């Protein structure tokens, strides 16, 4: 053992170095986020609670019941029923359910939807006491959208996975190619009817 090594051993040099680092860290800014008060920034494409985009024109969902999302879903948690309308014989969406407890949040459904009707929103605080509350029906999915847009600061919303960057857009369906940002504020005419809905939901929370 050389003298240097002996000195190192006797004076706990390496431990003191570690202590010095710890002390230095004590004086730096804390990196912890105090969660309920402080919040992390949410990046584009965040996959949170499911919602149906409320079409600003019709105030209804845009889904055309093409079944693509139900077919691609790896956990098979989307149930769709379509029926024929007696008046004109056209198919319409009778039932659309997402079982959020089974969802694995891969976001495939958002990406395959040809009309950009479905979205995984930036909501992440939606725990519930019962399973039924996390079984999203068509109406609940639209409600989710209203709740989400009410919190959104921007006036328009565009999900990253509706039309991902960097892939050849010319091969995408027309609805996806032409999809622009969706206005998140209700149009002036329909403003009074959508506001009571929001307040009603907040009370149940």
């Amino acid at each position, binding site marked *: 053992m050389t003298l240097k090594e002996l000195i190192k051993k006797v004076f706990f040099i390496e431990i003191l170095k570690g202590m010095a*680092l710890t002390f230095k860290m004590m004086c730096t800014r804390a990196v912890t986020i105090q969660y309920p008060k402080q919040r992390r920034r949410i990046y584009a494409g965040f996959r949170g609670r499911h919602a149906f985009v409320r079409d600003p024109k019709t105030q209804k969902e845009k889904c055309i019941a093409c079944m693509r999302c139900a077919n691609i879903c*790896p956990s098979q948690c989307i149930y769709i029923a379509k029926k024929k309308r007696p008046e004109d014989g056209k198919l319409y969406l009778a039932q659309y359910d997402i079982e959020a407890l089974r969802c694995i949040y891969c976001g495939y459904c958002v990406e395959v939807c040809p009309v950009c009707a479905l979205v995984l929103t930036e909501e992440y605080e939606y725990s519930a006491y019962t399973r039924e509350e996390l079984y999203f029906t068509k109406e609940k999915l639209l409600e989710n959208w209203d709740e989400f847009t009410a919190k959104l600061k921007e006036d328009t919303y565009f999900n990253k996975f509706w039309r991902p960057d960097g892939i*050849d857009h010319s091969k995408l369906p027309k609805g996806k190619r032409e999809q622009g940002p969706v206005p998140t504020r209700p149009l002036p005419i329909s403003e009074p009817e959508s506001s009571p809905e929001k307040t009603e939901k907040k009370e149940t929370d």
Partner: protein
Amino acid sequence: MSVKRDLKTKLLTINMGPQHPATHGVLRLVLELDGETVVNCKPYVGYLHRGTEKLGENRTYPMALPLTDRLDYVSSMANNIGFCVAVERLLGIEVPERAKYIRTIMAELTRIANHIVWIATHALDIGAMTVFLYSMRDREWILELYEMACGARLTVTYPRIGGVRADVDQEFLDHCYKFTEEFPKRVEQYETLIDQNRIWLQRTKGIGVLTAEEAINLGLTGPTLRGSGVPYDVRKFAPYDAYDKVEFEVPVGKVGDVYDRYRCRMEEFRQSNSIIRQCLEKMPSGYVLAADAPGYDMAAGPRKKPAQPSAPKAEGAADTPQPPANQPAEQGPAFEEIYVATEVPKGELGFYFVSDGTGKPYRMRIRAPSFVHASALPKMCEGSLVADVIANIGTIDIVLGECDR
């Protein structure tokens, strides 16, 4: 003297796990102890078995991709890439350059994130608490980079067959570059805390020694093998993605003990960092998805013939046969099989597919490094002290999600 001779001792059998904080999951070890010494060690696995392989056989290739996130949940991005590379070779898809570079960046970020979790838990098990705090702080940075790219932090599902799901933006590249500048300093911080620390040295040096021969015979891969001095790395031996276009070294140890494996992984931090840096500098522009990539709604039925059967072969796919065009239905399904290994942070992750020409794999087998590494535990633990079992579990970097599949 006579009293001592009359003392009868017998072996004590104890259960370590499946619920034990230091087994990194639900690993159960049955230890037979003679005092403090381990005489016999038997690992039992399978507590986290979810039937991933069988599930994969009931899903089309794009639908089976999210399952791989849940294998090794600490390095989900690397598992995704491994799956995608395997399916791409099977279908004969050439990935665009930009996607290759993005994937390489992601794979190396994953390697750093995984090793961060490894150093955090390993050091915590052995008794160094502070490293845990510092390394978790830095992991957050990587998870944020993931989120920038794809919106998810843990179960990312970012790569897809034929490329990646979405291009990365300038913000990601800037942050990533900043990360590569800052990260070597962070590695130095970890090293300041434990590298020369006498407690750390005593707990790791000469513990769990595996010679190169033993390590190869046990089928170990990754840093666990390289710690024994075998420079085997899939990234060098069978390059995929952009690994043949970047320069990096494969760090190896000498003795093959816990400390050498620790040194290997610490060196891999720096190598991964330099790979990310090189990729960022060389990043080409263009699409991130191959034109002939299957869509998400890939049919479960027989696959269509490739548009151009004489497409140029991928450089890395020279050793694997180009899938032949499907046989007519009368002749029965044309079976193809392929095994593709990728270097995930824990070792060699292999996907073995048998395809009957449809959109679903006929058989999907996953060669999980953690499963193989678990079999090295008896060799390492027998004859050592009970306290060293913890160090040995930590050093093989086991994740039970992957081990039990």
